[in-house]
């Protein structure tokens, strides 16, 4: 086996293992909601401070995405911006390397 692909294989194994652990634990938990840990954290704050969750108001007014769809769209936008930059740079480097090989 080529030593070159070791990291790729490891990454695939890790991602599969991650999914497997997730599927196994979610089948055990049964009623897990998979809410964000931010939300779970906020609930715990309400318990600790004895202030009901509804009593927490933003200190600075905040715009909230009107629905989950809009929110996921904006998250996708964020990832897309990152992806475009990463892809552009790798392409740029690849092109540079090619030019250098031709000259050298």
């Amino acid at each position: 086996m080529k030593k070159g692909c070791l990291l790729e294989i490891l990454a695939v194994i890790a991602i599969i293992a991650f999914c497997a652990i997730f599927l196994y634990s979610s089948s055990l938990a049964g009623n897990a909601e998979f809410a964000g840990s931010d939300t779970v954290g906020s609930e715990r704050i309400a318990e600790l401070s004895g202030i009901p969750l509804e009593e927490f108001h933003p200190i600075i007014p905040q715009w909230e995405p009107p629905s989950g769809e809009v929110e996921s769209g904006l998250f996708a936008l964020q990832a897309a911006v990152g992806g475009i930059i990463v892809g552009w740079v790798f392409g740029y480097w690849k092109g540079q390397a090619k030019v250098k090989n031709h000259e050298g």
Partner: protein
Amino acid sequence: MHIMEGFLPLPWAVFWWVVALPCLAFGIYQLKRILSADREALPLLGVTGGFIFILSSLKLPSVTGSCSHPTGTGLSAVCFGPFVTSVICAIVLLFQSLFLAHGGLSTLGANIISMGVIGPVAGWAVYRVLRDTRVHVYLTIFSACAIADLVTYVVTSLELALAYPAEVGGVASSFVLFLGIFAITQVPLAIVEGIVLALVFKYIVTLKPEILVRLRVFPEEKIRAAAGDAQ
């Protein structure tokens, strides 16, 4: 790891802002210096920053039955140092607090400290310790990234514990409670993130090893050995 808007009492929100601002100022100063010294550093900054954008938008379900997201800050901390990373994180966190209601403007200071300052500092410290040892480049990157991710969530737990000490046991017992929510969810994510970013680093080593040598990210022999493995 976001502390939601309104969930941090005003004095604490102000305190974390006051801690965060000098880190950001220093980061901007460093960024200017690096870029004016070497324009070829800009694409590398784009890659490491781009991965912070991508990874911090992926909310993944984890073992504890809740969702969390990786931070992606380790790679940037290794290449440019923790404070440049703070600047990129501040941009991401500002976007998320303005448009996604994840975190808020008053809690932004605390969130910058956890994701942008202490997490990357921890990852960078791991990298600095391992850099000049015989530990393999990719293992170094893996450890730095996983630690940066995990420590971010430990710091979030600490920030919340300081603001909301439990009636019995005080700060320590509520710290353990918040660790249970944030840090345990994060362990599998941190491991996967470490491996994925090590893989990304491999592609940087294959395509553009010169820039890593020039920025003195790793000694030249180590980069050459790592590139040799990849061929």
